[in-house]
């Protein structure tokens, strides 16, 4: 018995405006129904006009996933009724999506097929409450119409570890492209795995869709639960039903939501309000040129260009902002003309990694300065430091006494005394370490 898993991931794009209207797409935390207009509210007579940037970002994402970009593409209406869907249909893509047939290689060496990457619009938000003793559902349409990119994989996964690796890579790619914050907790990256079990090496003729997965933690738990649930049914000679189930964190299990069969007649037809899209080779090339160097390439380049270990390379490139910060620092150091210390890339890398420097809190100027200081520090050999420490401890026996009594604060005093003697800026942490060593 082999798990067969395919993933549907929705990524919310951080465009300025919504997918089909000019309302601000920055809806999180805003007063309800203050980011709506006739279009995203589904008022009579309103018409959609597609967001150029959103479409280009979708294509860009598809390109990073090695997809084909067909010359012709269009939008279609997906018709179904739900209170969070104001028009009674969602504008999506059916048979001519923007991107098709891609692939992505995981750390485990496995290659996952990407079936398609397409654009659609988000729905409103439902909030369940009790008002005046009655159970009601409240609807906020601020999120209605926000651009969503849907990435569908072939059912190529067979374990949760790969799923998590894929999600992390996808998250990193969208952040590198700067098209989404891809935050599972905030809802700008949503996962719906389709899970089934194969007993004969072939793709099973049923699948269970799992919803309500809001964090990486839930991903592991929910998929593993579902695999176990289905496996035990099969062992009992029962076939799992094709359905949608929701992960219930409180109960730590998936719960059946609705039988999928019935609601699947979406009556797709081409969206008459939006003319089709036809790409020129020039435009495709232009979009491709917008793709920055992605993490994988960057790691390779860093390790080569800066003589870093692969591990250090991975850490520095985890987030593009950190990688750019690192490289900008190197650039600035090269410009130092006078006799100041010029830290090497490796020294810069070590410093950033060890200190966990936050690019938002430390300017490059401050960073370079700190690194230079720390390098100056190591010019005082440990032996010399130790001699000074021994002297201070001898002069102030109370330090040792109080320390043995458990008064840790006395170390600060010792540090102060050593600094007074040295009269130079040194690495306090190293000093603290050496003092504690001496005291023990």
């Amino acid at each position: 018995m082999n798990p067969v898993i395919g993933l549907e991931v929705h990524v919310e794009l951080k465009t300025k405006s919504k997918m089909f209207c000019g309302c601000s797409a920055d809806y999180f935390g805003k007063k309800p129904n203050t980011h709506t207009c006739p279009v995203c509210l589904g008022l009579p007579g309103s018409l959609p006009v597609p967001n150029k940037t959103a479409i280009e970002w979708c294509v860009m994402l598809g390109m990073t996933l090695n997809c084909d970009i067909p010359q012709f593409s269009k939008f279609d209406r997906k018709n179904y009724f739900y209170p969070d869907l104001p028009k009674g249909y969602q504008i999506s893509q059916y048979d001519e999506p923007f991107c098709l047939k891609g692939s992505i290689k995981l750390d485990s060496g496995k290659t996952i097929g990407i079936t398609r990457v397409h654009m659609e619009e988000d729905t409103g938000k439902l909030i369940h409450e009790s008002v005046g003793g009655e159970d009601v559902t409240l609807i906020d349409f601020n999120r209605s119409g926000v651009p969503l990119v849907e990435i569908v994989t072939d059912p190529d996964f067979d374990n949760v570890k790969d799923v998590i690796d894929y999600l992390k890579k996808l998250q990193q790619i969208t952040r590198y492209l700067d098209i989404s914050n891809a935050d599972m907790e905030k809802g700008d990256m949503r996962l719906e795995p389709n899970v089934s079990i194969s007993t004969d090496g072939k793709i099973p003729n049923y699948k269970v869709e799992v919803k309500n997965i809001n964090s990486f933690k839930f991903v592991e738990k929910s998929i593993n639960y579902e695999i176990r649930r289905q496996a035990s049914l099969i062992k009992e000679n029962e076939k799992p039903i094709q359905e949608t189930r929701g992960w219930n964190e409180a109960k730590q299990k998936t719960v059946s939501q609705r039988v999928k069969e019935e609601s699947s007649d979406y009556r797709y037809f081409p969206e008459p309000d939006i003319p089709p899209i036809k790409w020129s080779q020039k435009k495709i090339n232009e979009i491709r040129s917008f793709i920055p160097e992605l993490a994988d390439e960057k790691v390779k380049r860093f390790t080569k260009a800066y003589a870093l270990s692969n591990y250090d390379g991975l850490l520095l490139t985890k987030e593009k902002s950190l990688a750019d910060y690192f490289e900008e620092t190197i650039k600035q150091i090269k410009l130092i003309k006078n006799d100041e210390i010029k830290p090497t890339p490796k020294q810069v890398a070590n410093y950033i990694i060890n200190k966990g420097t936050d690019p938002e809190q430390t300017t490059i100027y401050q960073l370079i300065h700190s690194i230079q200081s720390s390098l100056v520090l190591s010019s005082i050999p440990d032996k010399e430091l130790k001699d000074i420490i021994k002297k201070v401890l001898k002069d102030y026996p109370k330090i040792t006494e109080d320390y043995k009594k458990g008064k840790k604060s006395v170390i600060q005093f010792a540090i102060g005394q050593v600094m007074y003697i040295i009269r130079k800026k040194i690495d306090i942490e190293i000093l603290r370490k050496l003092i504690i060593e001496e005291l023990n």
Partner: protein
Amino acid sequence: MKINVKHTAKLANLPLSTREVKKFEGQLSETLRYIEGLNEINTDNVKPTDHVTGQENVLREDATTPSLSQKEALSNSKSKHNGMFKVKAILNE
């Protein structure tokens, strides 16, 4: 050709009485008979027309425009609470 009126009404989210279901069964069958004429036309190798304008690539720059105020957005709703539209509780979420 008979349309499954009950099933279609469900898909269309239309509340129909039993009398209406019966009436529509007959009327919709009649309509289908009328439009059967299309089968006489050979459409091999003919592409469907989705848009008569022939236009392509009509896109909008990513810029924000003013939204309706909350008051305007809710102005026509008969059921609201705390700035949101209110409906009977929906299960299954």
